[in-house]
Each structure stands twice: as C-alpha cells, then as structure tokens.
C-alpha cells in the first residue's frame, strides 16, 4: 500500500496544477486502511512526509478510514457505483471521514484529485 502513497507523492510533485490547488493546504491527513495507518503530511500542497504505523502521538486534521478491498475498487479506472468517490465510500458504509471536515471541504478538489492519483498507476500497469 505504501507504494500507492509514494506514487501519489511523486505525481503531486510533477503536476503544477495540484501544487496551485493545494497552495493553502498544509495539514496532516490520516488514511486508515483496515488496521493500517498512514499519515500524509502536506506542506503547501506538496506531500512532504509519509509515515506508516499506528501512532497516538501524530496529530491529524482529518481522517479517511476504509478497507483495502474498497480502496482497491476506488483505485480502478472505472469503479463500481459508490466506490468512485470518497463520499461514496461513506455512503456505502465502507468508509468514514472524521476530524475537521470543513478543512477537507475547503480543499476538496485538491484532496479528491490527490486521492484519485493511484488510478493512473493501475492504468499504467494494465
């Protein structure tokens, strides 16, 4: 799973439009997949740190929690209905979003575009 986030990191770095969209986004986001935790720290839209492992000491602004199967479907090029969007995962009962939702909503396009980047990894592998 870590390779998905390192791919994300590299893709953000080479896409000026994402850096523009994320210019005011300097937050840590927790992505929890089953019992695995990934802390993604952004600084002005750049993904500057990736930390894996359960931590009670790492503060985060908002968290998205889902399961590996749902996230795998989310990252296909054409996910099934509901699996195509982070809010769809929540609606299906396969995801949960906690924390400062307003910060997420203010940066929603940036964060959604970032979360969708591994779809291109899947496409490249096919």
């Amino acid at each position, binding site marked *: 799973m870590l390779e998905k986030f390192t791919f994300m990191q590299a893709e953000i770095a080479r896409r000026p439009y994402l850096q523009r969209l994320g210019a005011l986004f300097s937050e840590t986001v927790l992505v929890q997949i089953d019992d695995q935790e990934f802390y993604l720290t952004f600084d002005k839209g750049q993904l500057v740190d990736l930390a894996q492992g359960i931590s009670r000491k790492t503060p985060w602004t908002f968290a998205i929690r889902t399961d590996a199967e749902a996230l795998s479907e989310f990252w296909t*090029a054409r996910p099934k209905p509901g699996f195509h*969007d*982070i*809010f*769809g995962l929540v609606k299906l009962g396969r995801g949960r979003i906690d924390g400062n939702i307003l910060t997420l*909503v203010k940066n*929603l*396009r940036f964060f959604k575009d970032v979360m969708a980047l591994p779809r291109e990894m899947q496409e490249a592998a096919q």
Partner: protein
Amino acid sequence: MTIEPICGRYLTVQIDGTPQRIYFEEAGQGRPVICLHTAGADTRQWRHLMNTPEVTGRHRLIAFDMPWHGKSLPPEGFQTQEYLLQTDAYIKTVLAVIDGLGLENPILAGCSMGGRIALQLAALHPDKFSGFIAIEASDFQPAWYDIDWFHRPDAHGGEMGAALVSANISPYAPEAERWNTLWMFMQSGPGVFRGDLNFYTKDDSLIARLPMIDTAKTPVHIIVGAYDLTCTPEDAKRTADQIPGATLAVMDELGHFPMSEHPDGFLPFFRHGLSLM
C-alpha cells in the same frame, strides 16, 4: 466554423409582484419541452440535446435560467437579500415562463431539483402539462452535509460545490464534459447553490403529494443514473413506487447530470422518455 441552432432571448415576468428578467433559449420545432436545470447550474446543461437533430426535429426544446442563475440576474435589491429557493416560488416561476411564452401543455423535463419540481407540478398543476420526465428525481433527500459550507466569506463556494457534486458524476463520463459540467457550479453566484439546496434538502412536502399524481392524464417517467449518490436508484424507485403508473429507467453508466456529463449515453434514455409522453 459552426453556428449552433440554439437561440437565446429574455422574458420579463412578475413573480409575487417582483419583476424577474429570465433568460431562455430554445431549439427545434414541434411539441414543446420545457427543460429545467439542476441546482447551482444553468441552461447550458441542456445544450447537447438542443444540438441533437433526432430530438429537435420533432420537439421544441426550451430551457431557461432560474432567477439568480446563469444569465438571469437576481431581482433588484438582491445585495441585501438571502437567496433561499422555496417550492411555491419555484412553481410560480415555471408557470410564469410557460404562460409568458404562450406554451400549451408542454412536456416538462427537469433534472435534480428540476425533477423534484416536475413531480410537484405533476401533483399540483397537471392541467398545464402533457407529461413529465423527472431526471435524478426523488421525493426527498435531507443533506448529509452542511449547506452553509457553500456560502462563506473565507472560501469559494462555487469551487467547493463543484468538488462536492463531482461525487455524482460517472467515471464513464467523457473528461471534457465532466469538467464542463463542473464549471457551471464553479461559476454559480455567491450563495446560489446553497439557496437551491435549501429547497432540495429541507422541503419534504412532495412525499404526501406523490399519490395525487394521475399518470393516466399526465405520464410520469423517472430516469436515474447508477452513479448518482444524491438521488440513488433506490431513492428514485421508492419515489416511482409511490406514483401509480409511473415508469422508471436506470442508467447503469451515468450519474446525476446525464444530459450534461454524458450526452451520448443519455440520448437513448431521453428519447425513450419522450416516446412515453
């Protein structure tokens, strides 16, 4: 070079004593079809169908921008008003446009909040129409989000609204049309999407009115996309089940803005809907 057959004009009508200058555009000849846009958007959502000879050869498609939307300015004094769309004013606006344009028993095709008001009109004013195509339409959906997110001084409501509604667009939608669809939300005036959502997420008066709809006099056809998270196929089916005689079609590869996000995919469903009217 291409010049499209769509023509736009303005109509001024009185709604509750207030003059509203309404932009409308049309294309085609034949049976009139009034087309209603979704929340936070405008008539451009219908431009593909208006450029489709298979539709306009037999139908006169007329779409208009609700006041505060697209090229319809808000009313005088808007700068100190809070825009909150209400069912009664929405109904009066649709009826005023129909009367103002002298249309006799048009078909009404509306999407999302336009589909919701289509069903309200089917219940309350069926004599004014010959049938209803209610797209992504359901009885009621409370908001799972805070509608105030989309009108605040420290963020761009249009961009946030576009990012939110992108959840309702199918991954089968052509990329260009996905973004054209979202652009309309990005352009939406301050507080307009929030004001539309006030109608869509707070007024549940349609639920009790659904059984009043007489489909023997005015047919009702509901169309819903499988990728619509706002009005799901389950929501649309629950609604259709409450209207005796209503028909329902589910589009497996489309979302909440079918005429805009994926016009080619929507065309056969829309033509089928017209054939039932």
